[in-house]
């Protein structure tokens, strides 16, 4: 078991190197000189060659590319993501302020999706081809197709028009001011949750149907087990194993899903920070966030693998 974990961690190292190299390179081959861009962005007009030189020195841009990469990776691992090119503030500090907001939306949406989507998927599969299944499937595909940001815009429109309601401004931590916090995050969480419900319901339904066609289910029925025993003890247990692991693997996508909802509801989380950074080509922030996403993706993948093995005794780690 310990060997397995060690091997799994070692195997993900090349991917991590590749992924960090990718997000490093994407932003280093930006056309134009970053130092020039920063100075011209501030003052407007052409930058002095002398000050460009100084800034390049300061940012370490005149060092060889591989040195820049290694320094960046090493600093990022220690949690030092450099300073924002736009505001000059510490990127790590900025992340610490904003991550809680994004995590609240992402986990809230995921939680909603799991507690509604999985039961819906189970119901749909048990009642396959009945009207319940039909309605459930159509709803799921509809939720999958409606753009979340459009629902957000409509919610704001109806809120302001009919109820004179606006989401509270500024961040109120849930432990300090729970009601304001909930008012602020309710809609992004609900909208993200709707999408997650659809994904989880479809996944659960197809896994259930697959297991229900297995021979051992036929055997269970043939030996006269009650239907609820067949469903709950034999089908559900096996069908949910891949569902649980896929929930872990898709965590990164849930985080990506908050980006546009944060923009719609004016939540100053990682998403809005990322969008701003993209607009201003603030590559330290973009790189930093991509680094966090890549590392957590790999970590959650390993966790998913372990959970899979833990839930399914047929998998051995030898």
């Amino acid at each position: 078991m310990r060997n397995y974990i060690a091997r799994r961690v070692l195997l993900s190292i090349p991917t991590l190197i590749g992924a960090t190299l990718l997000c490093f390179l994407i932003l280093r081959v930006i056309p134009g000189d970053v130092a020039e861009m920063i100075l011209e962005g501030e003052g407007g007009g052409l930058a002095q060659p002398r000050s460009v030189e100084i800034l390049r020195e300061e940012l370490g841009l005149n060092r060889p590319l591989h040195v820049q990469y290694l320094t960046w990776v090493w600093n990022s691992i220690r949690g030092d993501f450099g300073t924002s090119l736009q505001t000059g503030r510490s990127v790590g500090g900025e992340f610490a302020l904003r991550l809680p907001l994004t995590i609240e939306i992402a986990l809230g949406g995921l939680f909603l999706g799991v507690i509604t989507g999985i039961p819906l998927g189970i119901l749909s599969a048990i009642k396959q081809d009945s009207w319940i299944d039909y309605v459930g499937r159509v709803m799921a595909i509809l939720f999958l197709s409606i753009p979340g940001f459009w629902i957000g815009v409509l919610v704001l429109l109806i809120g302001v028009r009919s109820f004179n309601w606006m989401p509270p401004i500024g961040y109120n931590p849930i432990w300090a001011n729970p009601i304001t916090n909930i008012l602020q995050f309710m809609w992004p969480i609900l909208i993200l949750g709707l999408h997650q419900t659809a994904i989880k319901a479809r996944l659960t339904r197809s896994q259930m149907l697959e297991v229900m066609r297995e021979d051992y289910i036929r055997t269970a029925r043939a030996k006269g087990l009650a239907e609820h025993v067949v469903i709950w003890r034999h089908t559900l247990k096996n069908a949910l194993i891949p569902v649980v692991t896929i929930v872990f693997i898709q965590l990164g996508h849930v985080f990506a899903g908050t980006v546009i909802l944060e923009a719609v509801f004016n939540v100053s989380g990682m998403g809005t920070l990322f969008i701003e950074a993209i607009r201003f080509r603030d590559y330290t922030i973009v790189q930093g966030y991509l680094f966090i996403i890549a590392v957590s993706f790999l970590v959650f993948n390993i966790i998913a693998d372990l959970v899979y093995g833990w839930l399914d005794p047929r998998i051995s780690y030898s």
Partner: protein
Amino acid sequence: MQQPTGELTPVAIAEKTALSAMQAWALAIWKWTKRLYIKKPLGAAGLSFILLASLSAIFAPLITPYGPLVQDYTVRLTAPGAAHWLGTDDYGRDLYTRIVYGARISLSIAIVAVFTEKLLSLAVGVFSGYIGGWVDMLIMRIADIFLTFPAILLIMALIAMLGVGIDKLIIAFVITGWAGTARVIRGQVLSIKNNDYVEAARSIGASKGRIMLRHIMPQTLAPWLILFSAALANIVLTEASLSYLGLGVPPPHPSWGRMLSEAAPRAMSAPWLVIFPGLAITLFVLAFNLFGDALRDVWDPRLRGR
């Protein structure tokens, strides 16, 4: 993956009925569509909508009364009515016209991007799976790297690098999209290449290129087309999101996503400006998803009935 429906393939029809190849293909497509309409009404509805919307996009100038960029300040922010079916925006541009032209933009981006990306991933997947060995391992590790990031974040980072523009958007979609499909296709190839008929082709001296192109690639087309349809839905949605954020289609092209963000400040007095473009996105994505699901049900025997 098995052949979709033995009796309906053009070859089978041509053998039985002594029709020309052209006619056999037409008949096969006709029969297949008829079956889809009977067995999968929702998927067929999706297909009908896609065809109708594509036709309107192609013939946009013929079915719209105004130009998409024509401004008329005398009719600013008019509510939907006889002259302007879906109302006008704050430059007095006709919303119905702009939505139809928006379909042109969205569809062309989606089709060009998905076609390029899927051709690339088909080639990579077949090659990687058939050649095997360290080449395969290297390619799959590279695919892993791309799959580490949720596509939309990587696309946004690429846009920061490349700048905003339709061509750049398509490049970003292709770069970020190939890996997933290439993996699926490679997986298919691994099981196909051990078939006896591949061995037979090899033993009569067929070249690697010929085996890949003639004997392996056609067997992967069913899952490929399913992913193709799903990707169309995905890209329409992603493009709309990016355009909403100002990172997608640049002005003056009418784009549904940007129409929504431009309309937001006017939404109070002119709600039609946020309702109809969003509805257009939803219907498009829904149609592609419904059609994709139907394809999956019909073609993937393992998933039948899901």
